[in-house]
């Protein structure tokens, strides 16, 4: 880190002390032109990734999957099966990499932890009264501590969108700081719920707010509102982590979640990472997909590349 970024970092860390300072900073960020951002995302989506590049992309994408189940109907049996799949996505092919993490509700963490113990697959848990975030702070923090205590090493929190949209940035900031503290050594992913933020200007501001408050990752969505991850939203977030690192020297990860179902989609995201923030982020430590059905499509495409024939859903485990 250079001297400039060190001093910038300490200046930026002061912002959280005052509502006015936060507001002035966030509203001073450059705007995002919707049409331009969407066109750039669409243009990146036209890249043609073939043969060796596709094989490389598929394995990387598998390693980046946060294999997720967040249903009221989740049971110990269901999440254990999911964890098993995370470890060995394609039982028929030992060269197939494991996924990045398993992502479940806090109550399910102990069952997943049993299966993953000793592996390199991370255990993520949504906390802080997911998905709405509409609970008293003490309850959200208790939720977080419980998940960590049960074995989660990654916490996916939701920001208080109501406070954000009402302009109470300090409140959002303070909650993230408190959750980060409650997470202890666990990595903190901050879910912006971009579908509720409505504009890219808001996405950029929320991204910076989450990073200033200490988030290790910024994540698009809960998957529980109609609009989840999109390419342009992810583009704006990638630009934010890029600019944040340039300003402070600290690297923050990005996780699009929800709605990413096909290999084709996943590769578009990887192209976008590659051409927006570069190879530093092309790693499961810095980029993740929050997804469930995506994994099977990646596996089918992987088989197609190795065997030359198209596979079918019957040949992959459904969990």
């Amino acid at each position: 880190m250079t001297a400039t970024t060190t001093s910038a970092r300490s200046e930026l860390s002061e912002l959280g002390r005052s509502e006015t300072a936060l507001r002035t900073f966030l509203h001073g960020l450059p705007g995002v032109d919707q049409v331009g951002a969407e066109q750039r995302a669409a243009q990146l989506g036209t890249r043609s990734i073939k043969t060796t590049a596709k094989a490389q992309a598929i394995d990387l994408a598998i390693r980046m999957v946060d294999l997720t189940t967040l249903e009221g109907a989740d049971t110990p049996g269901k999440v254990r099966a999911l964890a098993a799949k995370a470890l060995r996505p394609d039982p028929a092919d030992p060269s197939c990499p494991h996924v990045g993490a398993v992502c479940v509700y806090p109550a399910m963490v102990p069952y997943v932890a049993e299966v993953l113990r000793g592996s390199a697959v991370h255990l993520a848990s949504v906390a802080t009264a997911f998905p709405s975030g509409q609970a008293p702070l003490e309850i959200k923090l208790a939720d977080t501590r419980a998940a960590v205590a049960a074995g989660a090493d990654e916490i996916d929190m939701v920001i208080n969108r109501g406070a954000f949209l009402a302009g109470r940035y300090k409140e959002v900031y303070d909650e993230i700081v408190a959750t980060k503290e409650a997470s202890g050594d666990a990595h903190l992913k901050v879910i912006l719920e971009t579908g509720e933020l409505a504009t890219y200007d808001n996405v950029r501001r929320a991204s910076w707010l989450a990073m200033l408050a200490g988030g290790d990752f910024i994540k698009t969505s809960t998957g529980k509102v109609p609009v989840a991850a999109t390419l342009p939203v992810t583009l704006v977030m990638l630009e934010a982590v890029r600019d944040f690192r340039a300003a402070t020297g600290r690297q923050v990860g990005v996780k699009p979640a929800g709605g990413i179902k096909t290999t084709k989609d996943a590769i578009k995201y990887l192209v976008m990472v590659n051409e927006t923030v570069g190879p530093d982020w092309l790693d499961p430590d810095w980029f993740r997909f929050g997804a469930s059905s995506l994994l099977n499509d990646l596996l089918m495409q992987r088989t197609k590349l190795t065997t030359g024939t198209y596979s079918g859903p019957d040949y992959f485990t459904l969990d």
Partner: protein
Amino acid sequence: MFEYAPAPESRSVVDLKPSYGLFIDGTFVDPTDGGSFKSINPASEEVLAEIAEAGAQDVERAVRAARKAYDKVWGPMSGRDRAKYLYRIARLIQERSRELAVLESLDNGKPIRESRDVDLPLVAAHFFYYAGWADKLSHAGFGPNPRPIGVAAQVIPWNFPLLMLAWKIAPALAAGNTVVLKPAETTPLTALLFAEICQQADLPAGVVNIVTGAGDTGRALVEHTGVDKVAFTGSTEVGRAIARSVAGTSKKLTLELGGKAANIVFDDAPIDQAVEGIVNGIFFNQGHVCCAGSRLLVQENVADRVLESLKRRMAQLRVGDPLDKNTDVGAINSAAQLERIRELSDAGSAEGAERWSPPCELPERGFWFAPTIFTGVTQAHRIAREEIFGPVLSVLTFRTPAEAVEKANNTPYGLSAGIWTDKGSRILWMADRLRAGVVWANTFNKFDPTSPFGGYKESGYGREGGRHGLEGYLNV
């Protein structure tokens, strides 16, 4: 590292003949007093085909065929029926768009991504748009019964070969004129495929005639006394010569000439989109764009930040094989154009501007020029005044909106301009004061058949596109 594997578009979708004749009176014919020349692929220098070069007698034949078709068929035909032919052509272009896109990239050197996603969709859209005017001319605002002019001589450049053909032929035919068109000598192939499409559409013989050749053929065509209308897109130098040559005649003239557009970035601009706009403004089509944003005027208080972003973005540009679907910047169209770009860039360095290009490996064969920016440029530098027509950007700074306007307008050209700011009132204030025919605010290099395009001052006169585009082809 995530290395993209080659993703070549298939060449085999194009069925190239070894040689092509002139398209006169509905058939391909050999030249009577011309010779021939070769069209090459600028990315490999391989010969693509042997092309007939029209001599004065060939031009005479073509003009006579156009006159006959005007008098006997196309002039008397109802607007409704002319429209149907144009709709047919539009459909055929859509059906054969992949073939046309590959051929355009082969002959021109532009990336397939652009010929596929920009050129071809716009070509088809242009024919659709003007097809719809053919039977509505009395509602176009030029009086109750506007008449066509007659035979149009049209000379087009090599940068957007088929798109420029569409800009010329579609409004001319919709208004009821017949045409003799000369494509550029380095990019004749898509025009010749278009001639086949005219045959496929059963367009009456002589309505469209295509004479290939270089400057002499073009001169013979525009100076031909049997021509009633001249439309030219190309350099200001040639435009001036044409304006002189039609002096004292009754030929109607429209000219779309050079440019040296300012792309103006304010400190409150949406920076990431502005950087995209700068890149698109100057590196789209290798900078072979008359309305290219070749002068970046950036507000001094954000210049460092914008330049840093711009350089980072430029490092992502993929230069190389035009037929690779991931190529962003293709080949320079010809050895001569490459020489001109080199000459002006060297002048930029010699005059003390600082030159920068991202590291990029250029192919051995073919004509290539790395994306380049010059910083520390002033209005006095040649690279700030002369049209380079290549992937070379000159960066200047300004302090106030008034200074930006003054610098932007300080050129004999006036084709286009760009403004980047989040402040609406500033956009409108600037747009009022910029002397340019097209002003892109928070976007750049956008084209549409409904949107009039053309310049102020030495960038030419007349407009192409939209309702305005009909005026140059009607006797009003």
